[in-house]
């Protein structure tokens, strides 16, 4: 038992160059241009004429070691042993030999992986942890993504969209999933239910009070015990009190819903980066397939595909056609909840006569 503990080596972030394909290492910072030979494949050409092909594939993201080894086997047999992961968790193989590209694609597809996700496709949904391994989720993440990708797989494999579509999911309102052209996020609709017996044992009350964005929490004595109470009129049901104080249960099988947001875009291309905007809510959190959420997403994608011009991301498209037309072409209802009342909200109101007829 009295075993010597080993001190960590604080090596931090490892050097990537040791794991990089030699052609990429050699041409670092020297790339001249790229081409897109087919969906899921990129060709980069360097100033000195060196070429590297990339084959990109979608996976289940939660990888078991068997799948990980399968991906490595494919990389050894058909690739050149080098792998890169995109920030949306796609796997990429780099090869300097063009002849390897088609066999590599075939091997990936034969093993059930999905080649695509480049250029103007619907990219892999980026997802969070969900019920599988987070402590605060209102829904699952991997299951939502699996269900949606099953239906959007055709758009992942093709270039049918006006521009790329980045989708994200988040299973609580903290939204570690980030901004997306379309984001599917949990939206709670009822205040937390408090288990007063546990609060004083489990929660650091002042820091929970401080966590609430609208100061709706105050310390209180309940049944003679120190606890917390919530001003339910003020509460915006954000769930921020739940992580520091699990007895303030925000997740509810019926009242934790899904909301859909559109137009988040991290790129500076054309306009400045944008945050996503609410378009739909009240969508049931309906495992194992979440069909209602997928239906709304498909409606939005269809309208975007039919109406947007080349290179318009969803935010560019809506900026051109205006929000009234967006709600018209998608058939989604516009409600009082779409009008922002958070800080800075007046900047989102129309203070002009710019109205489309």
């Amino acid at each position, binding site marked *: 038992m009295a075993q010597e503990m080993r001190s960590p080596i604080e090596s931090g972030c490892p050097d990537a160059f040791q794991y990089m394909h030699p052609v990429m*290492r050699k041409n670092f*910072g020297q790339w001249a241009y790229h081409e897109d030979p087919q969906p899921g494949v990129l060709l980069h050409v360097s100033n000195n004429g060196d070429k590297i092909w990339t084959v990109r594939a979608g996976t289940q993201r*939660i990888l078991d070691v*068997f799948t990980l080894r399968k991906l490595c086997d494919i990389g050894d047999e058909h*690739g050149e042993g080098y792998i890169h992961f995109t920030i949306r968790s796609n796997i990429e193989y780099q090869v300097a030999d063009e002849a390897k590209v088609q066999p590599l694609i075939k091997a990936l597809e034969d093993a059930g992986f999905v080649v695509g996700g480049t250029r103007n496709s619907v990219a892999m949904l980026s997802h969070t942890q969900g019920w599988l391994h987070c402590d605060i989720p209102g829904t699952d993440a991997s299951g939502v993504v699996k269900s949606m990708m099953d239906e959007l797989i055709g758009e992942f494999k093709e270039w049918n969209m006006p521009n790329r579509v980045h989708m994200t999911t988040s299973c609580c309102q903290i939204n570690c999933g980030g901004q997306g052209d379309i984001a599917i996020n949990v939206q709670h609709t009822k205040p937390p239910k408090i288990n007063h017996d546990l609060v004083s044992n489990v929660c650091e009350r002042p820091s929970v009070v401080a966590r609430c964005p609208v100061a709706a929490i105050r310390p209180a004595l309940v049944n003679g015990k120190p606890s917390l109470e919530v001003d339910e009129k003020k509460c915006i049901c*954000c769930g921020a009190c739940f992580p520091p104080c699990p007895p303030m249960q925000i997740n509810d099988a019926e009242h934790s819903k899904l909301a859909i947001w559109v137009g988040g875009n991290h790129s*500076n291309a054309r*306009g400045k*980066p944008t945050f996503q905007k609410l378009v739909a809510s009240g969508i049931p959190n309906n*495992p194992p397939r979440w069909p209602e959420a997928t239906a709304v997403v498909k409606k939005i994608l269809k309208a975007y595909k039919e109406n947007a011009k080349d290179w318009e991301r969803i935010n560019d498209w809506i900026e051109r056609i205006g929000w009234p037309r967006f709600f018209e072409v998608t058939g989604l209802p516009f409600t009082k909840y779409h009008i922002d009342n958070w800080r800075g909200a007046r900047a989102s109101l129309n203070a002009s006569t710019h109205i489309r007829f």
Partner: protein
Amino acid sequence: MAKNTYPTPMLDNLETGPWPSFITGIKRLRDEHPDERINSVTNGLLGQLEHSYETRKGYWKGGTVSVYGYGGGIIPRFSEVGDAFPESKEFHTLRVQPPAGNFYTTDMLRQLGDSWEKHGSGLVTFHGQTGNIMFIGATTENTQHFFDEINEYGWDLGGAGPCVRTAMSCVGGARCEMSNCNEHAIHRWMVNNFTDDVHRPALPYKFKFKVSGCPNDCQNAIERSDFAIIGTWRDDMKVNQEEFKNYIEKKGRQYIIDNVITRCPTQALSLNDDDTISVDNHNCVRCMHCLNVMPKALHPGDDKGVTILIGGKRTLKIGDLMGTVVVPFKKLETEEDYESLQEMAEDIIDFWAENGLEHERCGEMIERIGLINFLEGIGIDVDPNMVSSPRQSSYVRMDGWDEEAEKWFERKREEKQAASA
């Protein structure tokens, strides 16, 4: 093969359909893995997950687990329904820092897989939203064993809690013609200077570095990091008129007008009568659109550097914030350039550590105290590139005007001298 497996009717549904199924993968561990420990833990996991699907609730709770010598890097997971599913009642996640830019060899992935199989559940994600490799599912004891093993061959934990977090960088110079900086060198230079702050959470809240090689910002740095480093250039973009003509030939003049010329946010492009393109480089805001459409014809210039934006974050607590320009342009070539960037990060983190409230992100602090107080705190001069427009409200005390104006003129004189020297 686990003898008695929990029934998973709802999860089984996720084994149908064309997209690869994570459930099928977990079941393979449950049913086919030679190690009974893995059969058992994944069986428990599936049982609990099915229970979540049925009741629409999560059943993990946090706690305190760390490896010897560190305060963070493990996400503790204890089951609240451990009596029903005891096999996975401890199911912690280890956050491990990936190589900058997410590059691996198959050999290294196999080695990591082998170690993980020895100590953990056999489930792993490349990568979490903050950028870590997430090794999902280890007991408290095995967390230490796994870490000890992989730490010996070059892998270290990432951040969790109020600390400097794992950084991220785009694929960048390794394979992208838009790159304007050495993303991966910057990434490592910055985060590895703060390893102590990564491993021992003692800041007001989390602090993230993210690096994108150009304003396309594939890394989401502006929207999702406290310290965003974005590659850019300040001389003229490079134009290959021959290639431009090829685009016209291939796509047609109208397509180029509608999709390139008129889409420039600052009207910096014109299509000339002889089918060449002119760029008003002074008014180009480096948005990247025209380069994205015509990567063979247009290319970033040679005088490369970075723009730095501070204070991006997601919703909690005051709403989403984007980073604000604090350094419009900085060269990153020499060791001194890198050192001064690092010093700036130290100044910012020190100032925030001192002035930020508990659980207040750097951007929220800036919102509370104002950009000016922040800039004065870290010793950076104001610059019109920091704003979309000057102030609209007259409600401000301005009796320091003359001195402030003189500072501006003084700075301009110095810049001129430096330029002519």
